[in-house]
């Protein structure tokens, strides 16, 4: 066999090989691509097993990304990307721009379009790779917090899909995008955003530079069952605020009480960088240490949603600044009625929680909440 023939055969083999690879990567599991959801209501419990949340709840598959920190996140991001077809990759991979980073909302994607690729279009293999990435950036193995809270959020949206919300709702309508190419040295971000869940991760120079603005909420606020699990994705946060506010003395409550009424978040989507010049309410530094701990408990339910490698520095900063942080509320301290509202505003931290009117489940309040950072929103960009 002469040299020319060998080259030809090699090229042929390469061609056949890449043919198979491309087949595999575009082979979309139809059962998951439809994002089909089955739901039933029996008494107060509901069962919502969607193929997406079922796949995402499965035990993590092993990955070859043995590195740690941002290098591991980059590796897992690349691994997820490599499971996608070239068309899917171009949908996922965008350039980093503030405009792209700001494209999130508290509305379903059908009412406020998102960038990126939606979970409903991913195959089981692709969802598994997505899962591997998310468990690296979100805390794992804490019930209704971190990654588990994200699944509970998707399960709740699947439930809204089945009870009359329609196809606008459901796990399939949550989008992931990469803004900038995953890199251990330059600027890039992961943005995962859907109806009641938005979580960005911004990296630059091989470190995490921002994990906000982060939006959480859930409808229904009540527990939703999927498979053999019962999720209450955002109930612990509501209870933590109620504990904090009811734990205050009458005088402290009077200082913390805002004169205005808040039926919604003040710094929701589209309200970037508009932090009030003057902080309102009760200064945490004036409180006893046990009451300060209640404030920190509420903060931890946001910050500790993230993997410890991302959360540690942020939590240290917020703890250091705790004395100069303010708590304010409107409505009742029980955080159980429509119109109840609480805000934590510090030198860096900004958290708002709004218990507001139901949309799909009318006359039943549900939560909206935003966590921002005065300087690190969008990684400071």
């Amino acid at each position: 066999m002469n040299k020319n023939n060998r080259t030809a055969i090699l090229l042929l083999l390469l061609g056949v090989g890449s043919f198979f690879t491309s087949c595999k990567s575009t082979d979309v599991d139809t059962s998951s691509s439809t994002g089909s959801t089955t739901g039933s209501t029996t008494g107060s419990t509901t069962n919502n097993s969607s193929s997406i949340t079922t796949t995402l709840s499965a035990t993590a598959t092993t990955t070859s990304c043995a590195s740690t920190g941002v290098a591991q996140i980059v590796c897992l991001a690349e691994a997820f990307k490599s499971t996608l077809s070239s068309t899917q990759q171009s949908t996922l991979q965008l350039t980093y721009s503030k405009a792209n980073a700001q494209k999130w909302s508290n509305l379903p994607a059908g009412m406020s379009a998102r960038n990126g690729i939606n979970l409903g279009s991913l195959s089981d293999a692709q969802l598994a790779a997505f899962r591997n990435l998310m468990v690296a950036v979100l805390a794992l193995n804490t019930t209704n917090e971190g990654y588990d809270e994200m699944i509970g959020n998707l399960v709740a949206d699947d439930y809204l899909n089945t009870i009359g919300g329609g196809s606008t709702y459901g796990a399939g309508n949550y989008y992931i995008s990469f803004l900038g190419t995953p890199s251990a040295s330059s600027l890039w971000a992961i943005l995962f955003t859907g109806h009641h869940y938005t979580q960005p991760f911004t990296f630059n120079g091989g470190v995490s530079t921002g994990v906000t603005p982060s939006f959480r909420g859930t409808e229904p606020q009540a527990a939703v069952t999927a498979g053999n699990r019962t999720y209450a994705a955002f109930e612990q946060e509501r209870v933590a605020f109620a504990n904090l506010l009811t734990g205050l003395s009458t005088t402290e409550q009077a200082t913390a009480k805002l004169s205005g009424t808040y039926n919604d978040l003040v710094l929701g989507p589209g309200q970037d960088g508009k932090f009030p010049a003057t902080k309102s309410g009760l200064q945490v530094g004036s409180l006893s240490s046990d009451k300060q701990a209640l404030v920190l408990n509420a903060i931890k339910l946001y910050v500790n949603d993230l993997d410890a490698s991302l959360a540690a520095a942020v939590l240290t900063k917020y703890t250091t600044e705790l004395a100069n942080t303010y708590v304010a509320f409107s409505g009742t301290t029980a955080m159980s009625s429509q119109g109840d509202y609480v805000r934590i505003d510090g030198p860096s931290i900004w958290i708002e929680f709004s218990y507001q009117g139901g949309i799909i489940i009318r006359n039943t309040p549900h939560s909206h909440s935003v966590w921002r950072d005065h300087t690190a929103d969008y990684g400071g960009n």
Partner: protein
Amino acid sequence: MNGTSFLSNQPTNSNSRLSGWLLLLVSLLLASGQPEHATAHPMPNSVVQLNVHPHRIDAELQIPLFELQSAWGHAVNDSSVGLVARLGPQLRAYLEAHIRPQSPDGRFWTVSVGPMSVHESQNPINGVYRELTAQVQMVPPAGNDVRQFRFYYDVVLHQVMTHTILVSVRQDWERGQLAEAEPMQVGTISLDIVNNRILPLPVNLASGGQWTGFIAMVKLGTQHIAEGTDHLLFLLVLLLPAPLLRAGQRWGRFGGVRYSSKRLLVIVTAFTAGHSLTLLLGSLAARYPEWADLPTQPVEILIALSILVSAIHAVRPIFAGREAWVAAGFGLIHGLAFASVLINLQLDAGPMALSILGFNLGIELMQLFIILLVIPWLLLLSRTPSYAIVRLTGAFLSGIAALAWIAERVSGQRNSLTTGIEEIVGYAAYGLIGLVVLSLYLTWRNRPLIDSPGL
């Protein structure tokens, strides 16, 4: 975001009729404005729509009751039934205290709250919710311009920090903007979050003029006829047998060009005289509130009936020789429908006078344009023996359309026929082409032409 507008809460004009004439006249017609894009705000906002008059502004407020209850209490959302009867005076006082336009010289305007009502509204984000609608009159101090003011408005917002008010101009006659078009956004009033204050909205409306207003009315007139299938159909069907001589109880042969032209001219003039008269009287009557409510439904039914009558006449002469009187008589009815368009604009006397003139001019121009497009071919056709088939087909189809409209307007329910008519009318331009081809073909086939002995 889908294109659904928060501003689309206003009641829409239900009798807008699409027409294929639009295809012919796109250049003459106004393009509709871009719909507003809803923000990510999940709570329903208030809407303030301004109707700018020469010496005052009428504002229509739409306030979601849930938000009003948060600000004002009184369980306005929890028990909204009979709200206006129960709390009318208090509500008026509340609104008047929170709506304070201010002229550049620092003087505040006189604000009075008129009729209020509660109704349901809907958007895709909030679903169904109830809101209060209030008509508010705002008059600047004597000598002050209505087009420049600082709009201090904090209804609901004085208490509910997350509330937003969208202010837009719904009608500004002098700028040629009429209520039929999409409202023009002026701005948003909401909390200045950084400084924790509520700023007034500066309103600076560009000045217009009577000429702009007049031209807008001419356009509205042409548009109204172009879209008013029933008005045109009445006239065209009445003109169908006009070129023919009467032969006993039947229609005979072509009466000659001079005979035809004279009859066409007389019928069209009579129709114009009739509808101009009632357009004038009806619009002027709007000055008197007790007359202002024109009986829309009977007028619409009579218009449909007028088409049926002229369709029967096109089959068999039932009022031959008296067409002018019939055209004038039914013209009076059609004019009342035209008047209701002007009355809905709620204009002051000066603009109203110019509007009657402009609107009527627009109507006549469009009517003339359509007649000039159609009649030559009708005249050509009427000289051929096949005209009877054309005439009977036209009369029969128009009669069915008239019956369908009568049924719709009596019952208040749309039916498949009227929906179908709207669709078919979209192809009117092709119909005209068909008419041209048919008339040319039949004229060519029937050489030598049958001409009246008089010519």
